[in-house]
């Protein structure tokens, strides 16, 4: 729960309980609304993930140039020796 708190808080200066209450009521309202889908009988209906039928796409097994390391690192918040740098992972 504490984790969730810091994720919610972000830049918002409002007290946490206010943010949570508002979010909870907004999400509840949205969930109530989407629950109307239960009015529909979908037994045996295939789910659709992509509307326009797509087949598996293969490409030729051929090398082509990809993004150079410097370009890939150009937006890194922190980098060192050609790597992305993050805080220590193992204590």
């Amino acid at each position, binding site marked *: 729960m504490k*984790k969730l708190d*810091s*994720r*919610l*808080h*972000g*830049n*918002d200066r409002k007290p946490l309980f206010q943010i949570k209450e508002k*979010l909870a009521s*907004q*999400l509840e*309202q*949205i*969930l109530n*609304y*989407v*629950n*109307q*889908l*239960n009015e*529909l009988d*979908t037994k045996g*209906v*295939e*789910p*659709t*993930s*992509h*509307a*326009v039928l*797509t087949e598996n*796409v293969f*490409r030729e097994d051929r090398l082509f140039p990809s*993004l150079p390391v410097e*370009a*890939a690192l*150009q*937006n*890194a*918040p*922190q980098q060192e020796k050609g790597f*992305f740098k*993050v*805080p*220590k*992972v193992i204590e």
Partner: protein
Amino acid sequence: MTMKLYQLTIHQAHQLLRKKEITSLELVKSVFERIDQTEPKISAYNELRKEAALKESEQFDRKIKEGKFKSPLTGIPLGLKDNICSAGVRTTCSSKILGDFIPPYDATVVKKLKESETIFVGKTNMDEFAMGSSTENSAFKKTRNPWDLERIPGGSSGGSAAAVAADECLGALGSDTGGSIRQPAALCGVVGLKPTYGLVSRFGLVAFASSLDQIGPLAKDVTDAALLLNEISGHDPMDSTSSLRPSEDYLKALRPEVKGLKIGIPKEYLIKGIDPEIEKSVMSAVNLWKGLGAEVVEISLPHTPYAVATYYILATAEASSNLERYDGVRFGYRSSEVKNLNDLYEKSRAEGFGPEVKRRIMLGTYALSSGYYDAYYKKAQQVRTLFIKDFTDAFKKVDAIVTPTTPTPAFRLGEKVQDPLQMYLSDIFTISANLAGIPAISVPCGLSSTGLPIGIQIMGRYFGESTLLNLAYAYEQASGFHNQKPNL
């Protein structure tokens, strides 16, 4: 009053460039003069690239002088939605988390338009990550509707629509996941086209909901929309969902005759709560087509009332997964005071995303979580199948389906910010086309008694863009509504 160059459509400007009556430099200068004059009121752009644009226009002018045109868009200044990657030009998605992001590569549509020798004026404002219907979810600025500065331009491509309506560019690209091209086009009185899923490459479009997203044009008239679609459509090996169909020349579709075409009016769309003025405008448009020789019949799309619910499960589920990449490690915003890696993820996301994006990530994560997956995500995917069947059945009987684009004209700034569900419901007429993957266009269809633009939507069969453009063109030419301009 003499016509200013910034007022030109793309095809008018192209004719004048060909006749050497104007230069691209004059055209681009005129657009930037207009921007200086109106942008303080409209705030359509996140970033302008004046110097570069002027330089490019001079380069193209040298070729134009020799009569060399790479395309009908040579030397034409365009706006680009800020979620379409442009190499070396900041692409922010109007989000703090991508506030300083400079893409190392061009989106395929940008590459194509550069090859067509167009000129990008700047990057247009939008709802953060294209999540919203008013552009008020931008982390940077509020864009205003050129027809009434107290009102929203629609969203999420609100910056593109406002820029086109205010003559701050000759045309623009937007993206449409649930109506984000058509709804702002309708509210700003311009033409907006969402192509069939797969017709335009999504490579380099920052992903929101990958099975629904499509890039498309916003334009001053139907001819310009066809011109833009000609340049950006076509197969792209970099997008595995890109269609392999051979290219079409959409200009050939611009015919004033509609004889023999059958238009369907879905009874479920004329719902309670729809603005009576909008219903009246749509019905008079339908009569106009009838007068031009089209046949009009009533049809049924029975699952229409479930569109918004289906969409807000599928779109948020896909978004929650797509937005996982913003973790502060490889690119984008990183929180400055972090103790460890988990802290870095959490704080970067908490500080980087705005409230609507967080709301949707939470909703989507919930819909995908074990225990709720079948009840929400799978259920919505099944209803999506029913939607597609609605349309396949309908298109056995008719060539196109006509509806209002929006239930009301532009609402006031701030009116729906506190009520996400009300905001979602403003997409009620546009969402179905994304769920089904079919093309749809919004065309200006007159003004309300309060002087606000109204849009009419035409939906078509898979890859039926030519039929849509034919109907839209015939309507536009007969009605003349595209000539109405805001008083700025």
